[in-house]
Structures are given as C-alpha cells and as structure tokens.
C-alpha cells in the first residue's frame, strides 16, 4: 500500500509538470489547469489511503469547510479583485504549511527535521501575515501608502535576531516547545513588518514574492514530514513566484532589495522640469480625431481597473474596427496590481488575446500609430524614464506612447499619481488630455460613434 501511494505521487508530480507546460500558450492553458487539478485529486486520494488514518471525520469536515469557502470565492470574485484574492490565497497556503510544520513536531526528530520544521513555520507564518497586509493594502481596507517610521530598521533587525536565536534554541532543546511558539509569534510579526513599508504601486512585486513563499513553505513542510510530492509541487510554485518577481523588478528597473527596503519616492528628488501647457480636449473633438484614424493603440493601467472600464473599452475597439481601423493594446508588465492583471480584465471583456501586445511588441510600431489612448496609466508611459536622468523612474522601460502621432490621456484630474512623479507626457505638443472618469469618457466616445 505504501508503495502504491508513493507511485501515485510520482504520477501526480508528472501531471503537475505537464499542466504547467501547457500554460505556455493560451490555447492549451485550460487543459493544463485541468491536468494540474487531476494531479491534485490523485495526490489527495493517494494520501487518503494512508494506513495511519483511523478516522475520516475531521478530514471530511475540514475539506467540506475549505471547499465551500473556496468555491464561493472563486465564483463570486470580480476580475478586478484578482490581486486581492491571490494575496489572500497566498496567506492561506502559508498558514496551512505553518500548521503542518507545527504538527510535525516530534521530540525524537533529527536535527535536519527540526530545521525544516522551523523553516516551514517561519516561512508559512510570515507569508500568512504578510499576505493579510498585502490584501488590506490592495483592497484599501488599510491605507495603501508605504508606512515608514523612525527606527524601523532597528526593530526589524531585532526581530530577525530573535527569530534566529529562538530557532537555534528550538533545535537544541526541541522538548521545550515554547521556543517554537516564539518562532511562530516572531514570524507572524515579521510578515507584518516586512510588508507595511511597501506602497500600493509595488504590490505586483510583493504578491509575486509571497506567492513564491507560499510554495517554499509547502516545500519546507514536505521536508518536515518526509513527503516528496509536497517538495515537488511546493518548489514549482516557489520557482514560479521567483520568476514573476524578477520580471516585475526588471519592468520597474529596480532591484528587489530596493522594492523591499525603501518606501518609494523617499529616495530621490524629482528634478523633472516640464515645459509646454496642458491641452484639454472634448469628447466630441476626440471622436473626430478617432474617426479619421486608421491605426489606434490602447494602453491601459490600474485606472482602467478602478473605473471598471474594460467592457466599454471593448465596445470602442469594435466600433473603431468596424470603421476600418486597426486596434491593438499595449500592456506594460507592471500595469495594474499584479502580473497579467490587464490581460485578464480585457479577456473578460472579450478582447482576443492576439491583440494584447507586450511592451517590446508595441514599441516598434508606435511611430505608425495615429492615436494612442492612455487609460489610467501614468508611470509606465512617462517619457521622463527615457529622457531625464534626474527622474526617480529613470531607466525604467516604458511604452513609448509619446511617439504616436496623437496621444489621448484619459485622467480624472491633474493630481499627480501614486508616486507623485511629474509626467512630461501631459505637456507634449501631440498630447491631448481627456479629463473625467475613464468609463464615462469612453462611453461618450462610443455614443458619438453610434
């Protein structure tokens, strides 16, 4: 029986890997997800065959509670709120690994096992509270600004020292379980302290990193209970999160250390000087320009998600295409609050995925674009990143919307964005500002076409 369980885990591991491989293309991705779900089912059934199980009641109750909550959340969540949901799920994964690591505590364990118990409790704990804070910032239940205070570094260093000391004591004296409780407490505290100094616009990096940690916590729990499927699945998730974290950091031209340890905007002074004047445009005039355009590019940002404007954007796209115009979308890797956020919103509105172009694909085409419509994006289209060495975002790769013949910027008002960086794009000769709520402005354009 034991061998059967172990072989089932090997098959499950192979299916997890195949499932991820199929995520390589939108055409096969759905089947890939089903393969992965099949792998999970197989692993769970195999685990239920374990002869150490004498009663199924608590397993079933736990599973029923989790399944109902999970299914309800999956069905009810709005696509704009995906970052919050992923953040919460990262946290649940972390807490589950913490509990398993804790339960694996056996005073007769080897030092290696004790170390892995500490690791699963530590990573799981900080993932849990860190994710709750990330959730709070994303859903704006707590302020999304970076929270810094005097002596923060000192406090954090003390927590790290405390974790190391109590972890060492636990490995020396495993019979004295209070050391493990101290590690748990400090891990939970550290998760909070690690995420509060990070601002809302940096959340794509944070949730990618916590995604990775939730996998690594499962991996550590796998070591603690000698289970290879936990190690395989956990490290796949860990690798995934780390790659996404790297992509996000590269897209902001910042190092991970810089994102984690310095509240944004407090580092450099902005020396961008803007010349020219703001030129507002009315919906009616914007319509005349669009009506004559033969090539339009749309560059969405977090503002599109906030205004829930994706469906009306799709309507505009269809009308433009009916008018004989080519329409493409340019998606910056850090547009939105999580990797791929804009793509999911536009897919929800039925925009075909071939028309969602990455930054490197859309930039070479920009000079032949008649009108570029920027919806709720700011830093990712700021030419200061290319031109002005004094700008805090200098060096960050951007979508070169200013190279289009005409740029429409849809914006609520002239109040500066999250990072408070001046954006010379708004003052360029070929830029027109369409002020107001993005959903209403685009709705106005759609009505003009009808």
């Amino acid at each position, binding site marked *: 029986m034991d061998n059967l369980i172990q072989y089932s885990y090997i098959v499950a591991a192979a299916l997890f890997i195949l499932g991820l491989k199929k995520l390589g293309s939108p055409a096969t991705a759905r089947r890939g997800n089903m393969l992965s779900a099949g792998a999970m089912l197989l692993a769970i059934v195999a685990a239920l065959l374990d002869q150490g199980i004498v009663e199924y009641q608590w397993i079933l109750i736990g599973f029923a509670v*989790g399944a109902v909550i999970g299914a309800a*959340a999956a069905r009810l969540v709005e696509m704009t709120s995906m970052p919050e949901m992923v953040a919460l799920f990262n946290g649940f994964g972390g807490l589950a690994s913490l509990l398993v690591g804790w339960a694996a505590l056996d005073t007769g364990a080897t030092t290696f096992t004790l170390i892995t118990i500490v690791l699963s409790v530590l990573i799981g704990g900080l993932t849990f509270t860190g994710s709750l804070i990330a959730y709070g910032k994303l859903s704006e239940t707590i302020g999304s600004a970076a929270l810094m205070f005097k002596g923060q570094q000192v406090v954090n260093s003390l927590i790290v020292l405390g974790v190391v000391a109590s972890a060492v004591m636990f490995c020396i004296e495993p019979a004295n379980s209070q050391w493990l409780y101290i590690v748990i407490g400090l891990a939970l505290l550290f998760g909070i302290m690690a995420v509060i100094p990070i601002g809302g616009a940096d959340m794509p990096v944070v949730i990618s990193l916590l995604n990775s940690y*939730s996998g690594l916590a499962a991996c550590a729990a796998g*070591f603690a209970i000698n289970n290879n499927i936990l190690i395989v699945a956990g490290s796949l998730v860990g690798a995934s999160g780390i790659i996404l974290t790297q992509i996000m950091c590269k897209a902001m031209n910042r190092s991970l250390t810089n994102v984690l340890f310095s509240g944004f905007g407090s580092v450099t002074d902005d020396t961008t000087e803007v010349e020219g004047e703001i030129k507002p445009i009315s919906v009616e005039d914007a319509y005349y320009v669009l009506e004559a355009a033969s090539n339009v590019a749309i560059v969405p940002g977090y503002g599109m998600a906030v205004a829930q404007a994706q469906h009306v954007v799709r309507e505009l796209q269809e009308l433009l295409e009916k008018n004989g115009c080519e329409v493409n979308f340019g998606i910056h890797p850090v547009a939105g609050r999580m990797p*791929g956020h804009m793509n999911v919103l536009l897919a929800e509105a039925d925009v075909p995925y071939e028309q969602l172009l990455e930054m490197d694909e859309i930039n070479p085409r920009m000079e032949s674009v008649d009108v570029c419509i920027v919806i709720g994006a700011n830093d990712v289209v700021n030419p200061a990143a290319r031109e002005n060495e004094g700008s805090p975002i200098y060096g960050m790769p951007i979508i070169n919307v200013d190279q289009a013949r005409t740029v429409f910027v849809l914006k609520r008002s002239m109040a500066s964005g999250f990072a408070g960086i001046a954006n010379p794009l708004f003052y360029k000769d070929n830029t027109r500002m369409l002020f107001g709520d993005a959903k209403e402005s685009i709705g106005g354009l759609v009505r003009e076409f009808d």
Partner: protein
Amino acid sequence: MIATEVFLTLILMLTIFLGFELITKVPSTLHTPLMSGANAISGITVVGAISLAGNGQQDLANWLGAGAVALASINVVGGYLVTDRMLAMFKKKGS
C-alpha cells in the same frame, strides 16, 4: 545507506531547475492565471495535513491537521476553479 534527506534535497534541486525552465515559457498574458494556479498547487499541503487530521488521537497535531486541511482545501478548490474561470475567457480572434 544514504539518508532520505539527501534524496529529498536532490528532488528539490531538480524541481527548482525544472520549474524555472517551465515558468519562463509562460507568456505574460497568462501571468494572473499562473499565479492563481500556483495558489491551487500550493494547496498540496492538504496531502500532508490529511494523515494528521485522521490520526484519531484528539491531540494537538490532530487539530492542527484538521485546520490545515480546511485552509489548504480553500486554495485547492478556489484556486483551480478561479483559474479555470479566467482561462475560459481567453479567446482567439473570431472564436
């Protein structure tokens, strides 16, 4: 006799390299479903929690295990369902 830990560490090392190869091939348009799918996979902890929740001892490990089964099941069920819901939205032109 080589210790089990050595084999487990070997598995870890190989899977991390494999994971890097697999994930770099995922296009950026699918990064959100990738993350929610990763949420679901990280629910694999349920497999470890099951034997604890069923040990019949009514001890601390039993309760911790039951709690972990519940939490990890949220991830497994919620993660796969929401990923499927998202992936169903990605359509080719004309379909």
